[in-house]
């Protein structure tokens, strides 16, 4: 399992639970946001908005979708929770480094 910060996971899981009305306790590190948690595209837009706002980042979700649709990456790479959180950690670190 990829390295990720537990505190980031907790924040992201809390956002997903609130936005998508999902029981927080059902969100695990290996949950797939779409297949397991049933987040639809509109919910995911709201989740993206809330995560961007919370962490001061801009998640490149369109680029991720392109990578998936064009076979350059598997959906799991972005939408399984521990991977999603790792990407968020990376974006936060990149932002801090650029500041």
């Amino acid at each position, binding site marked *: 399992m990829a390295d990720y910060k537990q505190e980031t996971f907790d924040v992201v899981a809390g956002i997903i639970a609130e936005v998508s009305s999902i029981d927080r306790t059902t969100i695990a590190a290996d949950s797939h946001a779409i297949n397991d948690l049933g987040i639809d595209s*509109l919910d995911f*837009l*709201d989740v*993206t*908005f809330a995560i*961007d*706002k919370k962490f001061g980042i*801009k*998640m*490149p*979700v*369109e*680029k991720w979708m392109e990578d998936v649709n064009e076979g350059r990456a598997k959906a799991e790479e972005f939408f399984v929770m521990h991977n999603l959180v790792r990407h968020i950690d990376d974006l936060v670190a990149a932002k801090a480094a650029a500041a």
Partner: protein
Amino acid sequence: MRLEKFQMIDRVERLDRAARSITCRCEVPRESSVFEGHFPGHPLLPGTLMIEAIAQCCGLLVLALHDFARMPVLVGVDKARMRAMIAPGAVLAAEGRLVQEGAVYVAAAGRLLSEGRKVAEAEIRLGTIPFPSEQFRADVRGFARQIGLI
């Protein structure tokens, strides 16, 4: 406003790219089939159309700031408030200000004023998607030119 055509904005009065804000003029028509039902003998601009005016105003702002690269579509409205009743013939100012921007969405704060008084407000979320065709993009540009956005 041409309510039957869902055209809420008559004219862009000010576009401030640096402040990422816009002000538009909306003239509520004296007559419209909308007023026949809302309400018979007591015409009022529906509150949902006030929010639509704010959303369109914010959409125009996104089009201008992104140079028509993508098409804004309304995906969310938060904290919508309608604070006054608007009658036919009123002249409204719709204001929008971009507050957050993501890869596939824009969040904006908007309000509607009548004679300087706030009559409606809302936080607007717009998804930004590819235009369905170059023709459609050209048509939107044409409309934007007509109302003074570009």
